[in-house]
């Protein structure tokens, strides 16, 4: 700290600290904390709104029944100023329970004979009818008030204020079996992608590092950099063109006479887990090559030649000299490849063409933007993040490298 102030002065040091503080707080730490906070906060929004909606429905049904009864009374009784109409075929039921399920019908029926379950007013005296009408009006007024209250409550609960939140693990535990399976499969695929890219790219990195002439090395490096620097989407899309029903692969099969494209034969290679898998191996291959090349390049070639002179087999030379030396590079390559494949949304979205069985990243997207459940989305992304951190830690333990070796 003292050297810092001595070299750059108080003002600049304060500026540096301020900027780094801004970066850490607003872009790294607090956003992560907020996501974790949301992940562990279960919002009982759906439950509460559902209960409210049910209560409101019930109140409306009750009100409707009462109004039916009232209008029946009004029609029947001269006390309310109307001519008695045809008697209802139903027996009077003064104690009609409001719980009787009545299918909501058109509120004001012009033909009284059709009024369902309304009491038969003609069986009652005028006084009784008036009293009953009063009673019904009171009840309806109470219900109106109740409905207004419930509806007000419903309004606030769809905003965040009325949301019932509690700290719990439910966002994680409520992950359905299907989602859990997708999570596990995504990680498994990412791991397989990592291993495949390592196996395929190791000889390439070795060959580049061992290039005898400068010209050859330049050529190899340019050849590696071009696909590496091409856009990720482009690399993914290039494989869609190969795997599609009218794509290159089916055309090849067609020209070999194995299938007949014109007759509508041909495989739909895209939109399958296998397709996403092979596309990811291709798209993220070079993230494995470069870190490995960088470490193998620093190996003293004399070691390999000495081993060869002493009769070491090719297998031994690689397992005992090159790979141990390349450990940090392998660790970096694995971490980056795994992280990219587990966290990509580009590959499953584009290869899937809207039909693909979900990838975990797509689930996260849907939690946020389709299910509108940000807390569950946070929980899902936290699960993904945790898996990646775990993978990094395992790698650091296996390859015995530190953070400083990883991010260089």
């Amino acid at each position, binding site marked *: 700290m003292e050297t810092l102030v001595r070299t750059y002065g108080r003002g600049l040091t304060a500026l540096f600290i301020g900027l780094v503080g801004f970066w850490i707080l607003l872009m790294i730490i607090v956003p992560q904390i907020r996501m974790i906070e949301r992940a562990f906060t279960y919002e009982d929004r759906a439950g509460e709104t559902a209960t409210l909606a049910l209560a409101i429905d019930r109140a409306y049904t009750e009100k409707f029944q009462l109004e039916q009864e009232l209008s029946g009374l009004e029609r029947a009784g001269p006390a309310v100023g109307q001519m008695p109409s045809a008697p209802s075929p139903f027996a009077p039921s003064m104690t009609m329970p409001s719980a009787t399920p009545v299918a909501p019908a058109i509120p004001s029926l012009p033909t009284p004979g059709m009024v369902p379950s309304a009491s038969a007013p003609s069986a009652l005296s005028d006084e009784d009818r008036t009293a009953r009408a009063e009673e019904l009006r009171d009840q309806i007024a109470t219900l109106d008030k109740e409905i207004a209250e419930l509806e007000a409550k419903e309004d606030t609960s769809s905003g965040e204020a009325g949301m019932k939140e509690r700290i719990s693990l439910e966002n994680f535990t409520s992950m359905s079996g299907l989602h859990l399976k997708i999570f596990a499969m995504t990680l498994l695929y990412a791991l397989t992608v990592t291993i495949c890219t390592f196996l395929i790219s190791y000889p390439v990195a070795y060959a580049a590092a061992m290039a005898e002439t400068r010209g050859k090395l330049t050529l190899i490096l340019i050849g590696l950099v071009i696909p590496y620097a*091409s856009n990720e989407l482009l690399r993914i899309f290039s494989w869609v063109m190969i795997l599609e029903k009218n794509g290159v692969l089916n055309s090849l099969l067609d020209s070999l006479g194995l299938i007949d494209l014109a007759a509508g034969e041909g495989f739909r290679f895209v939109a399958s887990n296998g397709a996403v898998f092979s596309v990811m191996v291709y798209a993220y291959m070079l993230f494995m090559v470069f870190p490995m090349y960088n470490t193998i390049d620093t190996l003293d070639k004399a070691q390999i030649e000495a081993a060869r002179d002493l009769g070491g087999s090719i297998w031994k030379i690689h397992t005992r000299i090159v790979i141990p030396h390349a450990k940090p590079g392998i660790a970096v390559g694995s971490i980056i490849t795994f992280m990219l494949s587990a966290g990509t949304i580009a590959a499953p979205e584009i290869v899937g063409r809207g039909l693909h069985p979900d990838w975990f990243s797509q689930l996260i997207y849907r939690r946020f933007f389709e299910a509108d459940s940000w807390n569950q989305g946070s929980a899902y992304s936290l699960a993904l993040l945790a898996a990646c951190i775990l993978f990094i830690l395992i790698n650091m333990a296996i390859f015995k490298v530190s953070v400083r070796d990883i991010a*260089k």
Partner: protein
Amino acid sequence: MTAATDMPGVVSGTIRRRKTGPDWSGALLNGYLLLFFVYMFLPLIFVVIAAFNAAPTPSATDWQGFTLRWFMELPQDTRFIQGLWHSLIIASGVICLSIPLGLSGAFLLTRLQSSAGTILYTILVSPILVPGIVLGVTTMIFWRDYFGLQAGLLTTVFAHTSFIASYCMLMFMARLQRQDPSLEEAGLDLGATPLFVFRRVTLPFLMPTILTASGLAFLQSFENYNTTFFAIGSSWTLVTEIGSRMRFGLSPMINAIGVIFIALTVIIAVTHTLMARKRA
């Protein structure tokens, strides 16, 4: 010293002599390398072929004649043009933020050697190791919850900066490690203010790296899909627009854009590699 450097020379001399016979493992390795490059380039070549194919859906095999139609249609597509503008705005914002942040981080870290330095280092490089979609998600949540800022161009700038600044920082740290501290000290001893030394010694020394880092920041931001996908909200960049059209693959216009991308990449990659070789 001389013995140590001489020895490998002698050994490699004997190896080279042995290599006059058939070198099977070397030939095998070269063959593998060739196969690998075919694997890497062939798919991209299909993309390029389809861009010049008159067939109305992107196809490399169903050749219906040469056309430049898909390139001509690009400037008329308002969503692409608008997306391009958004991408450029975002990338400029990212450069403006990432360079000062990366510089500050690098200055602090090269002067801090304690365990606090390791913790700070871990925090500052962590965004590189986090999946892109997680960065997008956290940024989107954070700015909406605490500042009421809806996902859009600004949040995308923040999301990109969080990890691009880390890349810039690593580049600056690598450069600062090669700096001769005596230059700064000499300036200070001769009575210059720290600000003056910073402006006249430190910044000029870092200038080449600042330029490369800006270029890298621009490319990283411009090409990003996974983080942007979450942080952009209902807006779009060129790349997210391309992504959403690729899902349905309806028009070879995306291939035309692809060709432009590949051409730019080839130019940048070749010049960069040649320059790096020359410097080495």
